[in-house]
């Protein structure tokens, strides 16, 4: 990992570290895994706090320190994004605009036939 840029990039790196380790870590432990050695410990704590407030991390008391762990696995977040992307959450919100919906069964057959025809021409 090269020089860490900006808070967003740092949030990402910290989530990656926590996802990779799969065990609750303290701010100090997280800081040890960040490539940028000059990073102030308080910066790591700030970012951990931000991620906790956004709901991406859960924390538990361990003596005088907090231990942080991801609230959900990376795959769970990817799945959540995909469900929203495919409009399968059922709330039909206008939050995203989608390219096209995938269909299945006899409906897909109609499209497959049309695709073959178009490609043959």
């Amino acid at each position, binding site marked *: 990992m090269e020089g860490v840029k900006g808070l967003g990039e740092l949030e990402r790196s910290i989530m990656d570290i926590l996802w990779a380790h799969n065990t609750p870590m303290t701010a100090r432990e997280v800081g040890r895994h960040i490539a940028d050695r000059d990073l102030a410990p308080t910066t790591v704590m700030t970012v951990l706090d931000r991620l906790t407030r956004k709901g991406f991390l859960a924390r538990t008391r361990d003596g005088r320190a907090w231990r942080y762990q991801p609230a959900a696995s990376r795959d769970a977040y990817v799945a959540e994004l*995909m469900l929203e992307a495919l409009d399968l959450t059922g709330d*039909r919100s206008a*939050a995203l605009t989608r*390219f*096209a919906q*995938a269909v299945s069964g006899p409906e*897909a057959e109609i499209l497959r036939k049309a*695709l073959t025809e178009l490609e043959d021409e």
Partner: protein
Amino acid sequence: MTAAALGLLALACVAGAWRFTTARWAYRAPRTAILLWQALGVTWGLASTGALLSYALQPYDRGIVGGLAAFAYSAASGGYGPPGAYDMPHVLALIAGLSLLAVLVGVLVTAGFQTLRARRRHREMLALIARDDPGVPGVRVLDHPGAAAYCVPGLRSQVVISAGTLKLLSPDELAALLAHETAHVRERHDLVLLPFAALRRALPWSQIVRDAQDAVGLLIEMAADDRARRFCSPRRLATALLRFGTAGAIPTPTGTMGATGPAATVMLRVERLVTPRPALPRAVTAAALSLSAALITSTPLLWLLPH
């Protein structure tokens, strides 16, 4: 008089919307059709609430806006208003009119906030998970084998595609897809859809509202297709659509066959891309535009009319 006119206008909007959901000419001029839909929506809202309020405020004889002011003034100063202002029918109409107005405004505002919140959450997750890909600069890539492509609209809109999409489509098709998504971003189609989606949530049992949202949803896709075809091969856009539709990313809920089912809408879009129909005659477009303009100006005028 005004109450009757507004009531008729509201009914005419419903009847018009009902006819319009099946109008095929709309596919030949999606932008004009979208404008007409918006005019119908705004007019229906202002006309139905206006009809109730106009009737309720008749005793004040100052029109709707003037009547509301007079009502507020007399209520605040502890007066009783003109005779007849508080008999049963007028009071009921006032309550119904104000409630309907509050519901419509409330639903719109709530939907706006919910949408913003959903997008912010989506964006936060993307920031942590999505990656950049040198093959598609400026596009966020989500590592999932399924096919997905969408846009998170906003001041800084983001186009997102899944890794599955990168594999599924040829470079030309990918370019076509991105042109389509960019069109959504540029024309802020999400803002067009928002009020219709909000109305649908407020009136989930209303078939006509559901049909209207589906119709507008399809029209903005067609408008985006039209813009995209200026920058890419329409044929490649069509094959991208079909490939996408058959990808079967995640099992989709069944039972959505029919005129607005996903397969049917994809086919409608493909047909327009492959064999475009001639543009609408100028007279028809002009008529639709004047109708929209007339509708949009009619209700505010009737609200302001003093009698």
